[in-house]
């Protein structure tokens, strides 16, 4: 597609973690002159974050940056405050780093109720305490009514890792097993159901969570580089994350529908709205590409954690069909899983 044509104006879909978002990021980053430091991971890699290798020292810093908005700001299972911390901390964890500190900026709409702000700040601080991450600086801005929707929180997270850790998006190896740590689509579906006014008398909640217990459980495997890459499938869902991997590594990923945990309510709501759970955001799940010789042990360790007890090996990395993600469906057919194009919208007609 021609970039000029689709980028005439910014559409909502440009922020939805699919092809259009890639275009937008490209547009913004193409003319940056200095894109990394000391050959660390930089903005050009479009990874979860960047690394700054420290000279004369065996560690490197990890920096990630995030803007958090959500509607509604209080949703089944969480709120914007919790989401901001989880998003930041998880990005650092997905690079194999230890989160140490973050800075934040609250941008608030004129007229926003203090009581709501209090709740969000509270949950922001509490979640940070649970993640053992310091909040070391910040800023606030108030914008005139109508110029934004209630509140936006931006964060910059700082972590640290050993230079010997090779985890990055581009580090997949042929034969790697793909582990998914839990059911998909819970977060996005719970939100959509709330927005569409479905009565979910069931207990469907966002899967929002800090991924720290999972990372802690496989610390040694991470240090030994048996874990080659990790991703949290937020916007764009696992379809977005897996396609990103396949593309960046010029390899293919073959997954099995049977192995992918999907809650019945999630499947039912998606069927009803004509949506594909693979495209729907999770906020407390991880995808790991791991050395096949160690995959079973890594899986077992993850399964021992509370948030990872439904983890499964869902697929494998191969050479054929490079840059594609293929799905063996529950009835045994094969089809492609495409990079999502925009925001998943319920089918209307």
């Amino acid at each position, binding site marked *: *597609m021609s970039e000029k044509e689709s980028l005439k104006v910014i559409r909502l879909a440009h922020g939805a973690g699919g092809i259009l978002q890639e275009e937008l990021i490209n547009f913004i980053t193409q003319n940056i002159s200095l894109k990394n430091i000391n050959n660390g991971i930089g903005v050009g890699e479009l990874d979860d974050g960047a690394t700054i290798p420290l000279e004369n020292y065996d560690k490197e810093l990890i920096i990630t940056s995030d803007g958090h908005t959500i509607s509604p700001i209080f949703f089944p299972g969480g709120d914007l405050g919790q989401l901001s911390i989880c998003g930041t901390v998880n990005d650092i964890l997905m690079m194999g780093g230890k989160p140490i500190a973050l800075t934040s900026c609250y941008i608030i709409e004129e007229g926003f109720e203090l009581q709501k702000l209090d709740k969000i700040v509270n949950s922001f601080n509490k979640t940070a305490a649970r993640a053992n991450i310091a909040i070391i600086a910040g800023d606030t801005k108030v914008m005139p009514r109508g110029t934004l929707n209630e509140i936006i929180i931006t964060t910059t997270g700082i972590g640290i890792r050993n230079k010997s850790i090779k985890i990055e998006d581009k580090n997949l190896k042929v034969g790697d097993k793909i582990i998914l740590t839990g059911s998909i689509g819970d977060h996005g579906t719970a939100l959509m159901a709330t927005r569409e006014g479905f009565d979910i*008398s*069931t207990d469907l909640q966002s899967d929002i969570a800090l991924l720290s217990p999972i990372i802690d459980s496989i610390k040694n495997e991470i240090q030994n580089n048996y874990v080659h890459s990790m991703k949290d499938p937020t916007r764009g869902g696992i379809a977005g994350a897996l396609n990103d991997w396949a593309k960046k590594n010029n390899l293919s990923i073959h997954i099995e529908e049977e192995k992918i945990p999907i809650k*019945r309510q999630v499947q039912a709501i998606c069927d009803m709205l004509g949506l594909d759970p693979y495209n729907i955001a999770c906020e407390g799940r991880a995808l790991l590409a791991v050395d096949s010789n160690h995959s079973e042990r890594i899986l077992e360790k993850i399964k021992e954690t509370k948030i990872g007890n439904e983890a499964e090996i869902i697929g494998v990395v191969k050479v054929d069909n490079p840059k594609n993600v293929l799905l063996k469906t529950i*009835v*045994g*057919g094969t*089809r*492609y899983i495409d990079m999502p194009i925009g925001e998943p919208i319920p*089918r209307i007609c």
Partner: protein
Amino acid sequence: MDIPNINILRSKKFTNKLLNSINNIINDIDRPVKFMHVCGTHEHTISKYGLRSILPSNIEIISGPGCPVCVCPAADIDKIIELAKKKDTIITTFGDMIRVPGTNISLAELKAKGADIRIIYGPNDAVKIAKENPKKEVIFFAIGFETTAPLIGYEIQSGPPSNFSVICAHKLIPAALELLISQSQLNLDGFISPGHVSAIIGLKPYNIFSQGYHIPNVITGFEPNDVLLAILLLLNEKKEKKYNVLNEYSRVVKPEGNLIAQEIISDVFDSISSPWRGIGRIYDGGLAIKEKYHEFDAEKKFEIEIEVSRDIPPGCSCHLIMIGKLKPNECKLFRKKCNPINPIGPCMISREGNCNIYYKYYKK
């Protein structure tokens, strides 16, 4: 919320049994067969579950004109666009419809220029908008097959406010099937017929295919094993040299259909010869509002003048895609100039359109 039990209909065990039987029968028949479905939702099921990849290669499933948005002719969109340009007018319609272009422009583009065009979920929303805006004309752009017609018919019967009217672009499925059979190059061996539509019209309208054309027909549900079972039933008909109308979707479709809905349709609408986008006029292929309800017929209520319309943009092959003569990947523009972000024809724009579905699930 009631969550349906879909276990058997998506169970691999049952799939394997069905596939076994399908393989056995096709060996007995010993020649390639070609079945057609006429429903975007069936194409979704077939593509999403990769059914073509597990069926024997001598069974071909092709896709007919099953996308209500796609078959709506440019002339009807041009009419609604003319109306939308009028002062104090609100146009209401279903989501995908607003992106499909008429001859020159789509409703979405007109909306961006300031026209009051609203996406609604059902005709009752349109009537509600009319009640809330008594000083404005509220026009509902009614598209769809037999499934949506009773809903709009019901609103018209119930006496909506006088500022409410309808552009009726409803199409009827059986007439389209008949047209497809007469396309000799297609050589169809049977129809996988749409469950939703049949729930309204019942089995009778399909009798002509078995009696008149000797082509078997299976009314089919929308789970993967529904479709495979339908294929098995069609093969069985072929093998036995029979051509019945069978009902695989009996959990929803009654043989007589939905009598109340049928009554509404025949009270409010006449079936007429009607143009389908890129396909041409189909005898009994659409619905028009009956004379006795003409005050709600926007075509009678307003003077609408449109110039000569153009259904298919240059280079686009939607007219051939919709009747199963071409597959999306055989269009030169597919995946190149034409994609869901910058779609060229209606089959790429609508999520029920064949090009759109192929883009998502097939790579070549």
